[in-house]
């Protein structure tokens, strides 16, 4: 059989090229997404989006007490915002992925809930500028 006999079954050094390409891509995305996202700043803002619409934008650095935000929907959730980060403390969904993500504390990090379409994203100070043109 042509197709089966053409399959190389043992890993070879050429496969390492694929592994290297994947690692390079992972590193590249990591670098672009986190290191160029204003993560160096010590000023954190949490932006909460629900079904594509921004529902809350909280300056975490100037927060004096912990703040909870409740999202209502098919699967509601409760988000705890504190000066050092954001965390989903409870959710009414079956998978609980957002709760398992734990606490995020650096700019560029995000908690994503796909079923309820909620994104909690931490942005650095640079995000005061909406768009940079040129």
């Amino acid at each position, binding site marked *: 059989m042509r*197709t089966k006999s053409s399959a190389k079954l*043992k890993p*070879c050094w050429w496969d390492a090229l694929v592994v290297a390409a*994947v690692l390079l891509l*992972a590193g590249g995305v990591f670098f672009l997404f986190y290191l160029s996202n204003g993560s160096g700043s010590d000023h954190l803002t949490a932006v909460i989006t629900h079904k594509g619409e921004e529902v809350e934008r909280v300056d975490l650095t100037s927060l004096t007490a912990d703040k909870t935000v409740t999202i209502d929907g098919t699967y509601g959730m409760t988000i705890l915002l504190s000066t050092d980060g954001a965390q989903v403390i409870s959710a009414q969904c079956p998978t609980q992925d957002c709760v398992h993500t734990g606490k995020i504390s650096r700019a560029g990090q995000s908690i994503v809930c*796909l079923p309820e379409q909620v994104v909690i994203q931490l942005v650095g100070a640079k995000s005061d500028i909406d768009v940079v043109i040129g």
Partner: protein
Amino acid sequence: MKLTTRQLALCAVLTALALGLSYMEGLFPVSLLIPLPGIKLGLANIVTVFALYELGVWPALAILVARCLLGSVFAGNASALIFSMMGGVLAMLVMIVLRRLRHLSIFGVSIGGAAAHNIGQIGAAIITLGSTAPVGYLPVLLVVALFTGALTGFVVSLLFRAMKNVHLMHE
């Protein structure tokens, strides 16, 4: 694509197997062992890789599309369709290209496929959420894809070794 009855039956069996595997996978969530949300072994991709090598491009693509459609019907979740479809089709395209590079073994091909699958799913997440936030999770998924892809390649290589004297396509 002109299929013999034998090939058609084989496609149907493989589609059922892929559906069974992805359902079974839900019973043993890997995320309990590794605390990373949304991580899956991707057992159904074993069928995709196997079909690509054993049956060729078009039957493999047909099995993939049938699996995605039926899977989302059974799950009763239409929004899952865009995720499995984008991941699956992108993985398939990358594997078709990688397989043509004769130097790569089945391991390299399936690792490339697993990585492409994750890229496709992040793409689907970007579309559904209307936000680029999911991109931040891609590096983690890509590193995990190295392991899940290697596992898929390993299983398919075992399968082909075991089936050395079994000829599915003709008597």
